[in-house]
């Protein structure tokens, strides 16, 4: 699997430049129930389609940013700083 991500700071770079932070998984705002907590900690949607996810420009500027990527085709539709 190989594709290009566009770092909001640095521009397009090989995906191997980046660290993957997984799909966006918002932290509960207030004390969650046990079920909510486990869902937050251990469950992911893992969609076959467009996914919002975190990336870290590890070999570059060191910024965390958000990307929208189609997990079926690896087309990156959009990247932006949070």
């Amino acid at each position: 699997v190989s594709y290009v991500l566009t770092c909001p700071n640095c521009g397009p770079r090989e995906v191997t430049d980046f660290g993957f932070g997984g799909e966006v998984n918002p932290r509960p705002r207030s004390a969650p129930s046990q079920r909510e907590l486990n869902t937050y900690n251990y469950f992911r949607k893992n969609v076959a389609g467009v996914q919002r996810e975190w990336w870290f420009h590890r070999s570059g500027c060191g910024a965390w940013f958000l990307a929208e990527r189609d997990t079926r085709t690896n087309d990156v539709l959009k990247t932006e700083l949070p």
Partner: protein
Amino acid sequence: VSRLPRRDGERIDREREVFFTFDGKRVVGLEGDTIGSALFASGRRTFSRSFKYHRPRGLMCCAGQCPNCLVQVDGAPGVRACTEPVREGMKVVHMNASPSLDFDVMRATDKVGTAFTPPGFYYKTFIRPRRLWPLYEKVLRHAAGLGKLRKSQREREWRTEYRRRHTDVLVVGGGTAGLSAAIAAAELGADVVLCDEGAEPGGRLLAEGGHGHARELAARAREAGVEMLSNAPALGAFDGLVPVWQGDTLHQVRARRVVYATGTIEQPLLFAGNDLPGVMLSGGALRLAALYAVRPGTRAVVAAVCDRGLEAAIALRAAGVEIAAVADMRAGGSSQAFKTLERASIGVMRGTRVVAAHGRMQIERVTLDSDRFGELQVACDLLVVSGGSAPATSLLSQAGARTAYDEERGVFALADLPEDVLAAGEVAGAGALEDAELSGRVAGAEAAHALGMGDDRSRDRAEHGLERLAQLARRPAEVAVPPPAPPKGDGKCFACLCEDVTVKDIHLSVAEGYDSIELSKRYTTTTMGPCQGRMCQLPAVRQMAEETGQTLAQVGTTTSRPPWHSVPMGALAGRPFEPAKRSAIHGRHREQGATVMWAGDWRRAYDYGDPRGEALAVHEAAGLIDVSTLGKLIVRGPDAGELLDRLYPNRFSNLKPGRIRYGVIASDAGRIVDDGTICRLDDDTFYVTTTSSGAGAVYEWFSWWLADWRLDVHLTDVTQGLGAVNLAGPRAREIMGKLTELDCSSEAFTYLDGKQAEVAGVPSLILRIGFVGEVGYEIHFPAAHGEHLWDALLEAGQEHGLRPFGLEPQRLLRLQKMHILVGQDTDSESTPFGAAMPWIVKLDKEDDFIGKWALERFAEEPPETALVGFTLTNGRARTGRRKRDHLRQRPSPTCASRNQALLRPGRRGAAVVSLAELDPHREALAS
């Protein structure tokens, strides 16, 4: 050395001789020669022995397409002699023949007959008795395989590089169509890379009379700004990425549009003895004559199924080759080529095919079978074959194109292209020169248009070009499709030259039930050799269709996979790259006799030869350890305290400047991520240390949450910039006192104080922490001063018994103190409670922090497992009934003659024997 008279377009420089050796004998070639052309010019006809039967093989394609000329060059096996340029002093050795290329005892496998060597023979014949397989295997391994690798690793190493190239358009193939496509795209403003496997772009033009035109096109392409890569085959088509191998460099080309102008591959013909040296593809014979001025033979028979062979006959006669006969498989036809031959008074035998080639080490005569004349024999030393042109669709298939069987031409042709992939020239069916040029121009323009370049005029032109191409494509193809089964004849008829698979072998494999092309491929290994199906795919499919009664469309082709071109593994691996981090003091450790070990990316001192003694010194006098590997972060800003409060289960916002607190980072699942000490330098600034292996991960973790919360904090990773040493032991205070003006008395500099001062003249941050459980000073300083500070400390401590200590004594010391090592004593499921540190979790903190909710739940019930200290007596762990509770760390005898370890007992409580007994109340530490 005999060469043809000087001719236009030749690649050799007749003034400059190049000397090299072949099998130890001196050979003279000319600058511009390939190994193959130089050897051929010197009279050599056999270049290698075949894979299985050790049959002599000679030049056939002269274009790096077939496996017949593999040699070993300066120790590297599998080099194609026909394309590898000669270099002064290179040592070329034959492959796969013993004792010599001309007399090979293993030829016996060929003579004995094929009864013993059908496909899969090694599984059938050598399977019983089972216990002898290791012996069989040894013998077979010796007999099989090509070339020999050098024994020592050092001799096999070579430096290779990756290069990443992003571009608008990549053109694969530098023939007429490829060059035209590159020019068209570049002239519309696209950034274009063109890669070609040949030594210079031009493709077939170079050897077929169009060299002037080829060079003109190449010059225009360069002028238009095209980056031209020569000797650079494309290896495959991956998700938007095409790896292009060029010598020591692997270009990873990522293009927004790719134009494949890969041309066609001239096919061999099937007849008995079709592998004899002297049987040459028409393209190969032409290249020898045109590029290297070498006459491919004196008396030739030409066997063709299309005009390509006829045209070669004319060109070869012009090069001084006597044309003994031209056998054309077509019964009719009236193309221009026939007329040209007629004018040149070369007779063409229509409806004639080759039945067999005869000869011992090289071809001596051929048997032809003609519709009109019946069977006849012709003496010759060259048989030029042209079995048609198969589109080189492999890369296109990898890129997602579909192929379908073209009944008329008898080949698999392109049927469907994905949106971002274009094809031009012969591979797309535009064979004639004008067609190929037009097709290239159209494809190049389309690629640029797809990227938003060009204007209405260029679009119109491309539109017209497409229409014209469609008209041209309607011309009938004048090609005879060779019959699947070869005509009867004595001797072996090879479907696959790489792996020595005969037509009979494929017949057998079908009879044994391997009746799909993919199964037969795996069983017989047809198409799996160095040629990657270039020479054998089509014949194998034809025969499979015949044997199974299917159409070729039904049989289909095998899946094409990368690499399309043979490539050394080293070129794919890139530069061997194993990053090692060394502290600024590393050189001293080596001088002082340290055993160096890997610790994550770091190279660290394991010990200085005496771990027990080193640990003892820390207890009794003082020890010095290099802890530069610790992760170090500066967290600065008005919200710095709040950030740390949110990230750690304990509080930091209330830490006073100049004070230190230990912290454990937990995840939201309540599991330990990392630990370290934090010193508040001033109101807005904290100095955070992490574990050695966790430095990168903690920085990412902090910055991730910071990106989400957007607090007013700035993080700086100073891990590499600062060095650190830990001075510990009862005499540490005296030693410190000698090197700093700082008042080191226990009243003025108490446990968990952090002070900034000069140590041996080096501006330092001194942290009084209990790293190894004794009175200790962790000194952080600009890394460049490492050796100076290390030397100064050791010198000052010499009279006090100070010794450097390594990682292993440090582990022993920490173990005695129950100071956990995150990642060694903990795993991904450890919680602060399980690691015996309930005190670190401040659940009364009002504000939220990472891990709070999970830790609240963990706090309610006793942990399933816990780290506890215990003592071994008589070498047996008194761990209660459950003897198999896993030890997290092997107990090691220490200086204090205690056997201790951190143990993880089960829920029902293994007997916890004792906690660390040295300084249980931390009096020594804090003194």
